[in-house]
């Protein structure tokens, strides 16, 4: 196992948002982190990246305590757009290249072409779909071990969605791991192989997608509805 989270907890102002969450992530897999808004998906991702400190629990990465060294191998794509309006898309690439040693400029350029976004486009002129694609491009252009993608499909039109899905599949390799958070389960049915389902801060289901379909004769979407009902 590459990432192990053990009994993670987080409270905000007395409210428990992540409650005794444990799971492991293995190489070569794409995970769906599913749950309603407010179920703790984003907090959990931020805990792994170190942006939020867990009140309790343990995280190990490749057998060692998750620390600075491990975090260099984790690429996180937050939900919010965090680019400055005055920037051009190529500036976003430069910005990332300055921050992250594993940033692959050539791969970034290729992804932009694939996404039909131009180097000279200004951030303030991009549509929300283009911003979503650009966020994904800078994240996946890093040569990381673990990619955490928070809601990459939220509010995206159909065509952009297809491109995003293709690009995520292309980024999946035998030696990396991708976690995609979403409340849109149906979109992820085909592309993930593992499910982590959160409900009110707790893990209510962990499993292999095909196995869930095979043993229950139900789609992940149906199982999701059942668990939350």
């Amino acid at each position, binding site marked *: 196992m590459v990432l192990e989270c053990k009994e993670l907890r987080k409270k905000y102002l007395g409210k428990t948002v992540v409650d005794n969450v444990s799971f492991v992530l293995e190489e070569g*897999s*794409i995970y769906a982190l599913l749950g309603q808004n407010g179920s703790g998906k984003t907090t959990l991702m931020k805990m792994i990246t170190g942006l939020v400190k867990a009140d309790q629990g343990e995280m190990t990465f490749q057998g060692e305590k998750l620390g600075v060294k491990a975090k260099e191998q984790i690429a996180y794509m937050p939900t919010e757009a965090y680019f400055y309006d005055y920037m051009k898309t190529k500036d976003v690439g430069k910005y990332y290249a300055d921050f992250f040693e594993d940033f692959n400029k050539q791969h970034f350029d290729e992804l932009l072409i694939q996404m039909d976004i131009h180097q000279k486009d200004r951030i303030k002129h991009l549509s929300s779909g283009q911003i979503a694609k650009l966020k994904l491009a800078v994240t996946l252009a890093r040569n990381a071990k673990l990619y955490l993608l928070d809601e990459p499909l939220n509010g995206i039109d159909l065509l952009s969605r*297809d491109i995003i899905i*293709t690009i995520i599949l292309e980024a999946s390799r035998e030696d990396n791991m991708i976690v995609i958070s979403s409340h849109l389960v149906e979109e992820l049915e*085909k592309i993930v192989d593992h499910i982590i389902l959160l409900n009110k801060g707790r893990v209510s289901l962990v499993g292999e997608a*095909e196995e869930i379909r095979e043993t229950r*004769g*139900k*789609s*992940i979407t149906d199982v999701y509805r059942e668990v939350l009902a």
Partner: protein
Amino acid sequence: MEFINNVPIYVQVIDDIKRDIVNGILPMGGKMPSSRELALKYKINPNTSSRIYREMEAEGICFTKRGLGTFVTEDKETVVRIREKMAEDFINSFIQGMKGLGFTREELNHLISIKYGEGGA
């Protein structure tokens, strides 16, 4: 390809590939896409795609030549067998469905002979 989400994805893709083999779209002995290419073609998880090849090899539908890739079986018998098995599955579910609606064998035969000429619409 449209997927039904309550049936394992690998099962559905294998059926689709079998159809392509039976129709000759994937010719006998022909090279198949790599596991990665298959994942991108069907927009499915790469592990599902590797599993598809494992299952198909076990069934003798395809075989791997070391370093060259995966190829459709060269055995005509196998293709005939796949075709017959698929036909049987269709017929069985069709007959079950029609029985469920209370159709008799005669009514079924009659309907088929009419509808077949219309192209099965």
